[in-house]
Every structure is written in C-alpha cells, then in structure tokens.
C-alpha cells in the first residue's frame, strides 16, 4: 500500500502527460478547476462530479462548545461546513485497490 502524498504538481504533471500542453499551462488549468469548485461552494452551490463524488455545503447551527483542555464553555457561532460524499465508483475502486 502506498503512502505517498500527491500535490498539485502531480496533478499538473498528469495533465501535461495526457494533453501535451506546457507544464505551466497544465498547472494553471489544475488551479482553475480547483478555483471554480471553490467559487461554486462559496456561493453555497453543491458540486456534483459524476463518478467522482459530491461536495455539498451544510449549515450548522450555533451551539455551546467546551475547551477540552480547560473545560471552559465557549459559544460556537453558526457556520457552514463542507461535506464530501464519494461516488460508488470511487468507493469501489478505493476498496478494491487497498484490499490485501
């Protein structure tokens, strides 16, 4: 099982190999894909990428939290959180690839 960490560089390298644009332009395209996803999510939209997964924004209400170290109560403001739900295809491929 691998334990490597891939970054933007690896994704742009893959784009470079696949399409044959310059390395610089490949990197810019990776960046703009991520930017468009972020923009849509920041606008409260759900981003659904078929056979990959769905990113959705959930509203969380205010609640009283606790500082685990001091036990002190702290109010937690209402906030928006992102959840990612992987597609069946992703789940199946990840499960199959990591099976011993």
């Amino acid at each position, binding site marked *: 099982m691998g334990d490597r960490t891939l970054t933007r560089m690896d994704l742009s390298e893959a784009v470079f190999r*696949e399409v044959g644009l310059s390395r610089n332009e490949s990197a810019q395209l990776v960046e703009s*894909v*991520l930017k468009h996803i972020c923009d849509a999510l920041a606008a409260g939209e759900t981003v659904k990428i078929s056979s990959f997964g769905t990113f959705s924004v959930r509203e969380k209400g205010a609640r009283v939290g606790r500082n685990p170290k001091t036990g002190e109560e702290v109010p937690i403001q209402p*906030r928006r959180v992102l959840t*990612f739900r992987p597609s069946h295809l992703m789940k199946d491929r990840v499960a199959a690839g990591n099976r011993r």
Partner: protein
Amino acid sequence: MIRSELIQKIAEENPHLFQRDVERIVNTIFEEIIEAMARGDRVELRGFGAFSVKKRDARTGRNPRTGAAVEVEEKHVPFFKTGKGLRDRLNGEG
C-alpha cells in the same frame, strides 16, 4: 454545478483549447485523484483540502431486518478533509 458545467467554464476561459481537450484535462484531474487513493496514497491540495484513505476494521455487523450476525471484512474508504482556505471562504473570511 455538475461536471459538464465545470468543463464549460474552463472552456470559456480557454478559447484556444478544443472542448474535447478541456474534457480530457478535467477528467484526468479527477481520475488521478481516484488512482492515487486506489494505491493508498493521499492527495493534498493546499487551500482546497486533502483526499485520503481510511481503514475500517473488520467487525461483526447485524442484518437489521433479521438480527442475524454477519462478519463484515476490513475495508478502505475514501475520505476528504476540507482545507483551511476553503473552510474560511465558506464562512466569509477570505
């Protein structure tokens, strides 16, 4: 937003590229992330988030209908943790 709308936006910003190349570019990015996780690797995209694989131990489950015990094998599931930059943006701080 769905995959085809994402492709459309990228195509509009890059009029010098063929639509089919934009499709290949977008598909390659998602494909690369899935392949990495299928190998057990992590994909860390600063400001966006990190895709990783979590191990779920084998356990004895139950068929909720019949109550019969069933052995559930160890498995690996995809996991995404939102990056700080994006988390802050969702809450209007950045």
